[in-house]
C-alpha cells in the first residue's frame, strides 16, 4: 500500500466533486449501496434522444468512491447511451489513474454499478 491512491487528482475530485447534487425531474435514476461500509450513492440522469444531457449524484462515501463518481459522471456527460453500455469497469479504473487494492475495489466501482443500473431502467 502506498500513498498513491490519494494523489492530487483523486483528492480534488473528492473534495470538490463534479456534478454533485440532485436533478429535480430525472428520467433515469438509481441508488447504489456498498453494504460493507454503508456507502450510499444516488445518480440522476436526463437522457434525451439517447444522449446523456445531464447527470448528477449525491451520497456519502470514502474519497475513492466520491472521486470515482465525480470522474465517472464527467466521462459520460454528453455521451450517448451506447458509450455507457460499452464502458468497462477497467475504463473507469484507468480513468482514476491509481492502483486500487482488492479491499477498495467496491468503493471504486460503486458509481459504475449504480450508473449501469440507472440506464437499465429509463423512464420516458
Amino acid at each position, binding site marked *: 500500500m502506498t500513498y498513491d491512491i*490519494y494523489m492530487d487528482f483523486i483528492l480534488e475530485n473528492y473534495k470538490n466533486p463534479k456534478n454533485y447534487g440532485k436533478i429535480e425531474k430525472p428520467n433515469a435514476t438509481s441508488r447504489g449501496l456498498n453494504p460493507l461500509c454503508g456507502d450510499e450513492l444516488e445518480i440522476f440522469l436526463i437522457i434525451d434522444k439517447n444522449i446523456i444531457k445531464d447527470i448528477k449524484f449525491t451520497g456519502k*462515501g470514502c474519497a475513492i468512491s466520491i472521486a470515482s463518481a465525480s470522474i465517472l459522471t464527467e466521462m459520460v456527460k454528453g455521451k450517448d447511451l451506447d458509450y455507457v453500455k460499452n464502458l468497462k469497469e477497467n475504463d473507469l479504473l484507468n480513468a482514476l489513474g491509481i492502483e486500487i487494492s482488492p479491499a477498495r475495489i467496491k468503493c471504486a466501482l460503486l458509481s459504475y454499478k449504480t450508473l449501469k443500473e440507472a440506464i437499465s431502467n429509463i423512464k420516458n
Partner: protein
Amino acid sequence: MIDVNKIRKDFPILERKFNGKRMIYLDSTATSQKPIQVIDAISDYYKNYNANVHRGIYGLSEEATDLYEKSRENVSNFINSKQAESIVFVRNTTEALNLLAYTLGKKLKDGDEIITTVMEHHSNIVPWQFLKEKGVKIKYIDINEDGTLKMDEFNNLITERTKIITVTHVSNVLGTINDIKHIGKIAHENGSYFIVDGAQSVPHMPVDVENIDCDFLAFSGHKMLGPMGIGVLYGKKEILDEMDPFMGGGEMINEVHLSGATWADVPLKFEAGTPNVEGAVGLSAAVNYLKNIGMENVREHEKYLVNYALKRIEEFNGITFYGPRDSEIRGGVIAFNFKNVKNEKIAKALMDEGIMIHPHDVASILDINAVMVRSGHHCAQPLMDRLGIPATSRASFYIYNDLDDIDEFINALDNVKKVLKL
C-alpha cells in the same frame, strides 16, 4: 505486569514488516494473532496424534480422543464450569448462538418474546430475527449517551412472555462491559433463559460462569489466540440435557434405525460429525498460554492501554470515540471517527453525517504506516443506526500491544490529515 517484549517473541507474524515498518496489529477484536505454542500444538497434533475420535479402538485413536477430551476439560476449567460436559465444541460464537436460536427457538410460540440490545453483533441479532417468522417478538434495550445499556429498560420491557434474554458481555464497538450478573438475575427472576455472548470477554478478562450464573455462554477460539474453526458453547448441563439436538449425523446418536433415532448424552449430542480435534487441541494450547499470563493481568494490561490511548485521542484534534470513558467498564477496543476537522475544503458528501473523513480512508492511510485497524460497521449495523453514523474505524488491543503501538497509531492518525491534505 505483562512483559510485552517477551510475549511478542512468541508471535512469529509480528516480525513481518510492511512498507519497511514494524507491523502494528490493532485488530484483535476481529481475530487475534497466534503464539508459536498454538501453531506448534497444531503441527504436533498432525505429526503425532491425528486420528478420528471416540469410536476408535486402536491406541492412536485413543490418544486423539484423550487429547480432545482433555482440551474440553481445560476449556471447562478456564471459565470455571463445573463439568466438562457443559462444553460443546462448535465452529465459532456465531454457530453457538445459532444452535441456541434453532433449538430453544423451536419451542417458542407466536407472541413469545426475546430481549436483546442495540449494541449486539449481528451474530446475536440475525439468528433471533429468523424466529420472527413464527411470531416471536424481539425487543432491544437501548443505550445511554456514554454507550452503557439503559439498565432500567430491562424491567420495563420484560414480560411473562419473555423466554430469552441474550446480551453481549463486552461490545465489540463501544467496548462497554455490561453488568451481566445483574441482567442474569433479572432474567432468572422472570424464568427466562439467560445467554451471554462472550466473544469479546472470554479472551480479555476472567470469566466465571458460576459467578455470572448464565445459562449459556458463547465464544470463539480464534479471538483468544486459538485456531480458526473452533468455538465453544457453554451450557448448564441440566438445560443441555433437555434440549433437542441441532444437527444430526455421526457421533451425536445413541441408536439409528430406519424408523428413527435416539441421541447421545451431552455434549456429544450437539457435536454431529467428525469433530475438529485439531481446533480443540489448539484452543487448549491457547488457554494454557493465557492461563500462564493470568487473565487478571490480561485485563489490567488492556485497561492500561485503553486509558493511555483514550488520553492520546482526547489530546488529538478532531477525533470522537464511542463508548464509556471509564476503563473500569470498558474493554480494550476503541471505535472512533474524525470529526470537526478545521478545514472548509472537506468533502461535502460526508458533512451531513458530522464525520469528516471516511473510515475507509482512515484505515487505508493507517495501513501505509503498517498500523492495522478495522473500518466499517463491525457487524453491528443496528448500533451504527443508533449512533447515526455509517461506519467507524476501530483500534483494539491485546497482550502483544504496548504503548509504543499506541504512539505509532496516533502518529499515523496525524498522517491521515497530511495525506488527505486537510
